[in-house]
């Protein structure tokens, strides 16, 4: 079973998961999204790791959710795509990691700007539902998450991620 998790917990009846409602809004691939940007309703986009996220710039205000897939856990392009979406394009909507999402990657994903996660691995769902993340709350570099400068070096940040 696939579950959607955010820092507020497991999401019931997520509108973007296929089959969650009678006529669910689909996550559109990049080309279709660019085409459907004429429609009125907000829509979702699912990108591929090789897609250039900057192409979303002209339609960004119409997008309700961007899903970035991790076809295998070792394919880390989504981390840079997320950084560009958040920092370069200023995207503020939902950003979801889909595909192979490892528990130990979730803290890094949160830092690069993801805020929801599609998860299948049962022990991972268990840990997430208890909000027991395996991350490190001290950070040596700025990222896309909310960070506050500490005393010390200006590039060294700390973020209050896990509570």
């Amino acid at each position, binding site marked *: 079973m696939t579950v959607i998790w955010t820092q507020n917990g497991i999401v019931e009846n997520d509108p973007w998961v296929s089959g969650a409602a009678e006529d669910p809004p689909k996550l559109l691939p990049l080309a279709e999204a660019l085409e459907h940007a004429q429609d009125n309703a907000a829509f979702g986009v699912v990108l591929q790791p090789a897609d250039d996220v900057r192409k979303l710039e002209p339609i960004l205000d119409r997008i309700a959710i961007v899903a970035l897939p991790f076809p295998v856990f070792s*394919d*880390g392009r989504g*981390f840079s795509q997320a*950084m560009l979406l958040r920092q370069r394009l200023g995207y503020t909507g939902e950003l979801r990691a889909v595909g192979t999402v490892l528990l130990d990657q979730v803290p890094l994903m949160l830092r690069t700007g993801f805020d929801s996660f599609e998860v299948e691995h049962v022990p991972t769902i268990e840990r997430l539902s208890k909000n027991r993340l395996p991350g490190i709350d001290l950070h040596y570099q700025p990222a896309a998450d909310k960070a506050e400068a500490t005393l010390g*070096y200006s590039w060294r940040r700390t973020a209050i991620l896990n509570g």
Partner: protein
Amino acid sequence: MYRYDEFDHAFVAARVSQFRDQVERRLSGEISEDAFKPLRLMNGVYLQLHAYMLRVAVPYGTLNSRQMRKLAHIARTYDRGYGHFTTRQNIQYNWPALSDVPAILEELAEVEMHSIQTSGNCIRNVTADHFAGAAADEVADPRPYAEILRQWSSVHPEFSYLPRKFKIAVIASGHDRAAIQTHDIGLQLKQDDQGRFGFAVWIGGGQGRTPLLAKKIKDFLPESDLLSYVTAIVRVYNLHGRRDNKYKARIKILVHETGVEELTREIDAEWAHIRDGELKLPEADIAAINAYFTPPELVDRAEGWGELAAWKKSDPGFADWVGRNVAPHRHPDYAMVTISLKPIGGIPGDASADQMDAVARLAEEYGHDEIRVTHEQNLVLPHVALADLEPLYRALLADGLATANAGLITDIIACPGLDYCALANARSIPVAQEISSRFGDPARQAEIGDLKIKISGCINACGHHHVGHIGILGVEKKGTELYQISLGGSGDENASIGQITGRGFGPDEITDAIETVVETYLASRSSADETFIECYRRIGAEPFKAALYNSEAEAA
């Protein structure tokens, strides 16, 4: 040297408990070995042929005595009484139990050490010139910048799942003692005509099955832009580096396939967006890190000059050692001492726990508490008064650490090879040992002069054979080990990739073949001053090939 503050201590402690949690989940079966692999690798834990291996980071090769004693203690307590210093200035333990690793990491954290990012497809331990902060020829100490990069790259959220490993090296001298042109990013600290610091930047160097030298893409990057520019490089690599074939996944292939000019344009375009953002390094921050690297106070010890001359006259062994293993320090009354981990017939880079303790003691007594690990698998005491060289030498002699062979034919780099490594096709260590024994006579070594032999047990090239003056690559052919020879490689400021001579040699032939190469050089050199690499560059490969293969053609 750098000292952890509260933040660093808390960070490393958090990293240890994170890893403890990961090990517990693995041992309970909650995560599979496949899912665990990248997690353990990012913390330096490999699964080798016979056991797990733990690789501990020695950032930019700098250690103090307390840290060296801890490394000795770990070797004694959790391993078989020795450790292996590597070509990336790290140390490896070959026999730890996985369940002991969290405890080892806790012990390391006590002395401000860790194993973070010593493996995995992330930004690895940043290396630097092993003579940094002492060499007479540097513009400034490059290590503060290596430390800034170490901090910035630690558990970097965007760059922890790169297409492949990513290695950065920093120097501050025209003489490259850190092989920066074989790194993913090579940085040379320099000063412009107004005295401002900045970097020449190279990208795309690497060895492995496609050896390529790095290309210079910036002649002078202002120091304040260091982190933003490196971020731009790694981001472009993360998005566009190949992920379809792990042998084509390093940035060197992206540089090669995209073209250095086009890729530089992409990097510069990315950089333009982030250059003036939060990664800009303020002068005050650079100064704060620099303050940690204030050199020790070296009082004048001019009496050493006269004493040294007298000691050399009375003891030829000491004179040899000074001639090979002692290099000029910025302070005229001091020297930089190389402690060879290449005893004749020994295993390159190995040190026993007792030897580590001895080095720690001698660093305290004679070396202002500083020790360096070199990429050539030796140790260095960077600040020794000339007046202390003789007692230091006596003490090193007693511990088997006074081999006078730095830079000579027996100062061999070798990877662990098939004796330990799961990737290897052939053994490296026995080949190194046999060559070392064959050429062990001090007079013969001196006659041959500067000559770097580097041995890898497989095409991954951890033994840097591509940049050896003489490189040896172990391959496996029809179930037997075969050794290919390459000639003319170099990892310094005049870097070059060695060329393969021809068919390989069996384990019982390789030492003879090396001897043939050496004899050909001795017979061909224009004078005793012409080194092997100079001679090779003048006469080319042909005379060597003829000597190696012609007798065979005649026989056939």
